[in-house]
């Protein structure tokens, strides 16, 4: 392929961050414009890649490979297949929306946009990396900017922003520590000393050739599960996500909820399932159990929250429970449902955070008792809230419906008890979302909000951008599903072979 699309998508934000470094501090407008331009370029290229992706052929496309550290077997190799392409699209769309939603940052705008662009580059890198080394490298690149951005531009509500920044970073680093051990043992276990490599395709080949014993796979999968689980806010490791989001500035919580959590899910599928199928099958009942707890527990916690961002934090933990449930059922239908749900939740959560961010930016209020009757003065924000709220409730015609139904269809056969409880989750989700919408948006007029004007000009762009995808993928799910299907289809022989593998406690409920 002539033009290296993926490298440009990866490096455009990074190069622009470098360019911004040399701009003077006062030229806020130029900085914003450049940041938006770079993200615009990246998004257009991703859209082109998404359109040009040949679903019939499937497999890795737009691949680029430059050997980097040959004796370690590390190569700068990028590539996109049915699973990572939707994630890449998600990253760029949310990245662009987050740039627009942090349009009127006054305090140190230059540093903010540099860190934001570095963050987006890191996240993009993790999704398109075909090489574990690059995957880890980009993942570590992500953690630092987030910490700095939470510390400087964060907000101290129930918990001080230092605390939430610290908690966020330490949890992610602890997770990545487990993941690192897992990946290194994968690297060592896959091939003998001579031909060791970090390339994911090769690792998949190794596991299919049976280089890794059953116990090895079970243990390494547990390590990866701890790493990716804490990223995906699985039950015991979920406590960072509500605090993290509440403390973070709008753009960071958008990217964090929207995309960073999905790295956990993507990693679980790419590394957990494809490379360690026996391990995945063994731990599947545990994941399903935790997922069910995830859904119900977070939904209940969201019920009693007072702060908007906390509700969305817990709701994202609850939705990740569905993704985990989809993954644990280990069949093509539920896994493609899980991936689609990740994309859906990404867009929905970032829309929610952009609207809350706007309200917080204007009124400096985020707790539900203070905000009432926003609909009178903020019609566009209300549309944003309603769209995101109804999507998270699973309204057909919006993005969340098809993935959720697919997960349920895939899971109810395998884990009936867990699935029924998780499905009961949709009632609770409806309860806390509608309760929030009712209290915040509707109700009698409140003169206090008269002084603030609604979104106009650039501030509406996040709503438009994410709204288009929310409704587009909702009314025509085939656009999203065909790509995901082509990514998950090659898994069918792998999953079929798993049917007789022993599982934890002899299979789930």
């Amino acid at each position, binding site marked *: 392929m002539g033009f290296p699309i993926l490298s440009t998508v990866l490096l455009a934000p990074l190069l622009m961050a470098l360019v911004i470094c040399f701009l003077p501090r006062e030229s806020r407008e130029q900085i914003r414009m450049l940041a938006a331009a770079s993200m615009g370029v990246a998004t257009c290229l991703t859209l082109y890649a998404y359109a040009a992706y040949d679903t019939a052929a499937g497999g890795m496309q737009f691949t680029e490979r430059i050997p980097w550290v040959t004796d370690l077997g590390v190569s700068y190799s990028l590539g996109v297949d049915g699973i990572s392409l939707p994630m890449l699209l998600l990253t760029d769309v949310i990245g662009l929306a987050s740039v627009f939603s942090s349009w009127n940052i006054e305090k140190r705008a230059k540093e903010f946009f540099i860190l934001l662009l570095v963050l987006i580059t890191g996240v993009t890198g993790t999704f398109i990396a075909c090489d574990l080394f690059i995957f880890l490298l980009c993942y570590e690149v992500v953690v630092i900017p987030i910490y700095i951005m939470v510390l400087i531009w964060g907000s101290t509500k129930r918990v001080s922003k230092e605390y939430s920044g610290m*908690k966020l970073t*330490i*949890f992610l680093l602890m997770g990545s520590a487990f993941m690192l051990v897992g990946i290194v043992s994968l690297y060592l276990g896959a091939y003998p000393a001579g031909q060791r490599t970090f390339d994911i395709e090769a690792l998949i080949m190794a596991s299919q050739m049976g280089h890794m014993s059953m116990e090895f796979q079970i243990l390494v999968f547990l390590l990866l599960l701890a790493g990716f689980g804490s990223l995906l806010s699985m039950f*015991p490791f*979920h*406590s*960072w996500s509500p605090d993290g989001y509440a403390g973070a500035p709008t753009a960071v919580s958008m990217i964090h909820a929207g995309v960073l959590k999905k790295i956990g899910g993507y990693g679980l599928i790419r590394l957990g399932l494809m490379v360690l199928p026996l391990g995945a099958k063994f731990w599947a009942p545990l994941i399903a159990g935790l997922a069910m707890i995830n859904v119900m*527990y977070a939904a*209940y*916690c*969201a*019920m*009693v*929250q007072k702060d908007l961002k906390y509700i969305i934090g817990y709701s994202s933990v609850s939705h990740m429970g569905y993704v985990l449930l989809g993954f644990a059922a280990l*069949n*093509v*239908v539920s896994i*493609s*449902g899980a991936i*689609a749900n990740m994309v859906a939740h990404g867009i929905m959560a970032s829309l929610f955070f952009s609207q809350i961010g706007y309200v917080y930016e204007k009124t400096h209020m985020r707790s539900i008792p203070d905000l009432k*009757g926003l*609909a*009178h003065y903020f019609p566009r924000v209300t549309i944003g809230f309603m769209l995101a709220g*109804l999507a998270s409730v699973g*309204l*057909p*015609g919006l993005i969340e*419906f*098809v993935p959720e*139904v*697919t997960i*349920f*269809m895939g899971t*109810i*056969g395998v884990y009936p008890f867990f*699935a*029924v409880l998780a*499905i*009961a989750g*949709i*009632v*609770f989700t*409806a*309860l806390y979302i*509608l*309760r929030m919408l*009712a209290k915040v*948006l*509707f*109700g*009698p*007029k409140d003169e206090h909000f008269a002084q603030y004007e609604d979104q106009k000009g650039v501030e509406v762009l996040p709503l438009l951008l994410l709204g288009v995808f929310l409704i587009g993928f909702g009314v025509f*799910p*085939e656009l999203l*599903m*065909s790509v995901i*299907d082509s990514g*998950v*289809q090659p898994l*069918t022989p792998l999953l079929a072979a798993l049917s007789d593998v022993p599982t934890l406690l002899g299979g789930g409920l």
Partner: protein
Amino acid sequence: MSEFALTHAWLIPLLPALAFVVIGLFTRLNKKLSEAIAVSAISLSFLVSLCVLAAVIGGPVTMDNPFIQKALWAKMGTLELSMGVLIDPMTAMMLIVVTTVALLVQVYSIGYMEHDPGAGRFFAFLSLFASSMLGLVISVNFLQMYAFWELVGVCSYLLIGFYYYKISAREAAKKAFITTRIGDFGMLLGILLLQITFGTLDFMELKELVPAYIWISGTGFMTVVGLLLFIGPIGKSGQFPLHVWLPDAMEGPTPVSALIHAATMVVAGVYLVGRAYFIFSALPTVMNVIAWIGGFTAFFAATIAVTQRPFKRILAYSTISQLGYMMLALGVGSLTASMFHLMTHAFFKALMFLCAGAVIEAMNEEADIFKMGGLRHRMPTTFKCMTIGVLAIAGVPPFAGFFSKDMILAAAAEVSTPLYLLAAATAFMTAFYMARLLFVAFFGEVREDCPAHETNSYMKWPLVVLAVLAVLSGAWGHFAGFGEWVYYGTAAEEHIDFMIAGSSVVLTFIAFALAYEIYVAKRFSSYLISQRFGILYKLSYNKYYVDEFYTIVRNTFVDKLGAALYWFDLRVIDGMVNGLAKGVGCLSCVFTVLQNGQAQRYAAVFYCGVIALVAYSIFYAFRILQLLGGAY
């Protein structure tokens, strides 16, 4: 022409959807333009559905071989979700009913919303509702029906909460959505079970697979699926346990109540049971459950309606009661009776709601019927239409209600007499509370402070049309052979069982006379009667405290449990995390003791190390000596 209509039936839901998009995005603020777009869209749909009706009557399409069109919606591995159109006489009838009532309600709301700033938004939501209801009617598989089912639920949430500045309205909207959502949860489970056992959700395919499956492995599993599926209609059509949201839904504007909570949405549950009748009719236990829930809800709602004071609330409970009738008809095995009653009920209930709208607007938002009086002089047309409605619902012969209700009573009589007696008692009470409503509101002397005046023309003409339909639909349906047209299994020929019909007419007249005595002639004071019944009256007036019970349940199981879990989350899980951090902290302070700057302290530590080394080497002296090769 008819072929064109059939193949383009998917236009019917699409047109109002386009209207919604156009109004929503562009003409929301311009009232006139958005009204025009909305009404024109729904009238186009009405025309197309007329053509469809013509095609169905003329053409080969019957209940057994419907016209089907399908398109792929989403494909995941082996699972294929598709959308499509399924036309059969039942669908055609429903299309006509929905489009007619929607058109008339939209015309009515032009007048009703004259000086309401949010009119554009109102018409947008009405169009969205119309498109999703029509989508539900023509759906070809369970998933499409479930999708539009939820969409209709959301539209009712948006429309009930239309006056969002009223706290009661937004709470009622939330309550409506949550209660129907609980019903949807059960239905979704049923659909999922169907999917994993039969691998498809398509009605026609299931029609062959389900009877075969039941014949092989008995009705055990399918009963569970049937009951789960029936939970959806209980939620949506306001049957007994989940009926609480319907009376509160009266918070919405009256056209909304007329369209959604009388004619269309609430009958979606009945329509689902009708559409999936091949599953339910094969399961005797489920049929029994449906019949008894329907019968009980009818009786239960009628007892409450008798003592209610607000105009629209009486109509709401009467809707629940009539829906109970339809479920009863389905439960006793007569799809024709239920669908026929659905059609006639849609017309006269919409008529009465619109009259209620006119009356309440005239009395500038005063809803309590005991504060109205003698409106028959001030609002003659409304009074005439209201009378027609009351006579129709009471089942007085020439009007629609008589034919459809008696068909249900006849069907019920064949199956089980207790059900018939329950239905007859409900018929008596219906006649009584409707007459009470009419006499209290329209008869008696005119109050001086009542500003009532006749409504403007936009609101009057739909009333008249509906009144005509309320009169003719019964007779036309009966004599034109609704039975041969919409049936399950064998075509049911129309006949009137004079015994049942006669007894129900007599009951109705007795009820009218009783109501006249109490409320017009004031022979017995209603207050005294209510005192004598004491407990019964209090129970009925407070709606058997079902709402309070649900609030208690929600408080304990949702709010308190949520608070407990959140406390657990903060204390235990966060506690562990913070504890870990503190642990590392104080571990480090153990080592700071060794670095306090005093040289001697460092020397002491140094020598401890030396001693340890020397001691170690002494114990392992011999091995070390071998290592050194004994060169000392």
